[in-house]
């Protein structure tokens, strides 16, 4: 290596290290493209997401014999443009992914730090209570728990986010708790304590920043897990409700046309797969760059 990473600005060093992983860069490029697509859906999409073209129900995609460029990827059973709905679907899926990640991140940090912040019998009781609760959530298979939550609360986009957050929360809590515990034993924390740093400040400004690397990696991979789980709920009819353009729901709607119009089934799945693979590739790259200890050999 020409110049050692120490000479570089930390962000530059991070970027250089991230770029070593070709897959991660490709993943990142795709994620960027999907985010831009989701944000600019109104500008890019050729039609409205719920606009129906009665004269062109289940029109074939442009490359088929009877396809037209008006509907590049064809239309669904209600005559809505598939490309448009896929673009708007990116918005729904990314929103779910980011919302779940954001809420889990904040709650995970709060609960994880709460586990290790308090002293004495009360502290231990809090730690045991939170840890046991998280163990319980981990004991129930993810999708089954999400199904229970949605079945009880009723299917909707918001409840999908609630359900998937509950399922994903334990990973964040455990990660924060474990890394905070290992940091707490280190000299710099003792130093800060001796210097008179208060408990809240100690946790949030001294300990937490040093726990962030694995947490960021978990957050990135958590987005893709959330997108997959939300799409599965949508597919089972327990997620976002029609007419919302959500990839899982679109797949479920297309099931009955599996023989006649295979592209209706194929394309929403491709959208889910490409998004999830891209985020996972990016997450792997983040892990390699941020956390040399966890580096995949």
């Amino acid at each position, binding site marked *: 290596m020409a110049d050692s990473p120490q000479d570089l600005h930390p962000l530059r060093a991070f970027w250089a290290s991230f770029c070593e992983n070709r897959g991660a860069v490709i993943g990142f490029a795709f994620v960027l493209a999907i985010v831009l697509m989701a944000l600019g859906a109104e500008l890019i999409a050729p039609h409205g997401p719920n606009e129906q073209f009665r004269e062109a129900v289940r029109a074939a995609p442009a490359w088929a014999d009877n396809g037209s460029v008006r509907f590049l990827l064809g239309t669904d059973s209600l005559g809505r443009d598939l490309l448009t709905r896929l673009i708007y679907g990116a918005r729904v899926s990314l929103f779910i992914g980011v919302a779940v990640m954001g809420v889990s991140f904040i709650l995970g940090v709060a609960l994880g730090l709460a586990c290790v912040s308090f002293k004495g019998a009360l502290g231990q009781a809090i730690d045991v209570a939170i840890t046991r609760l998280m163990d319980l959530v981990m004991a129930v*298979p993810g999708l089954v728990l999400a199904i229970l939550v949605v079945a009880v609360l009723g299917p909707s986009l918001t409840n999908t986010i609630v359900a998937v957050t509950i399922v994903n929360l334990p990973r964040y809590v455990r990660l924060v708790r474990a890394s905070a515990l290992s940091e707490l034993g280190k000299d710099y924390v003792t130093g800060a304590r001796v210097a008179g740093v208060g408990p809240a400040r100690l946790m949030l400004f001294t300990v937490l920043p040093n726990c962030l690397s694995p947490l960021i990696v978990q957050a990135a991979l958590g987005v893709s897990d959330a997108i997959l789980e939300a799409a599965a709920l949508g597919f089972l009819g327990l997620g976002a409700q029609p007419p919302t353009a959500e990839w899982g729901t679109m797949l479920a709607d297309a099931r009955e046309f599996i023989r006649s119009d295979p592209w209706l089934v194929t394309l929403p799945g491709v959208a889910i797969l490409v998004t999830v*693979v891209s985020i996972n590739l990016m997450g792997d790259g983040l892990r390699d760059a941020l956390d040399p200890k966890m580096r995949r050999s």
Partner: protein
Amino acid sequence: MFRFLLRRVALTVPTFIALMFVTFVAIRLVPGDPVEVRVGERGISAERLAHFRHELGLDQSIPKQFLDYATQLLHGDFGTSLATNQKVLTEFLALFPATLELAFAAMLFAVLLGIPAGTAAAARRGSLFDQTLMGLSVTGYSMPIFWWGLLAIMLVAERWGLTPVSGRIDLIKFYFEPVTGFMVIDAWLSGQAGAVKDALHHLVLPAVVLGTVPLAVIARMTRSSMLEVLSEDYVRTARAKGLPAWRVVGLHALRNALIPVVTVIGLQVGALMAGAVLTETIFSWPGVGKWLIESIGRRDYPALQGGVMLISSVVILVNVLVDVTYGAINPRIRHG
């Protein structure tokens, strides 16, 4: 070892209590009148309401209700399904072998393919094979399996006609009473010509679909664990002795590389149950996953409550089993 076992089993007690609590609370959060929710009748008369309130114990205090619920569960009473008026446990036990058969076949597929593939990738680190396999592995564990299943049906079953589209056996050609509940075994016991082949034929596609995510995880885990082991001194010694590469990798290294892989296989059981819900729904596989989804559609809350409780119990018990096995293989865990 016995103390380790006891401690591990004791640790599940609070989890079970919490699980009871969650299912107890969940059914009370369902919007609507609790009697209506659990008896499934609308516009019920006042005296019938009072009758059912009493029968369901809803006129008792909440702690008493929870205690009653816990007592019922401990006596093996998981409630009665509204749709069929059968005990939830009876229904679950009748359907569970189908799920178990599917999950077992999926795991077999994942292990038999994943461990050799991961080992080969580690042995030729950086090669085209390694890179391809790792690419496939990322795709595999990112796979929306409900779509993967539909795609498999569309291509393998419909277009190429290689396998049946759904179900466990051709019911027109074969009929026999279930003995074990495992279709392949029952088909073999029935002695009907071609029955076993037909059952396997039905099993292969859903098993491959359900096994895809575990396959990706196992291949990846085997590879990284193998790479770690291959840099150990004893592997170098084995190489220095002049042993052929396949013996070094396949015998000396693999045995130690498999320890973390065994844990990962155990951890996949929960994921397998979740995946079974989707796979069974797509392939009309009459197991507990499909039954759970249908219960929601029928608003059969007692079945949902009992079903979640039972599926989770299975996963908790399997995890205990994995931990104990792991403790038996690796003394450091046992005494840690």
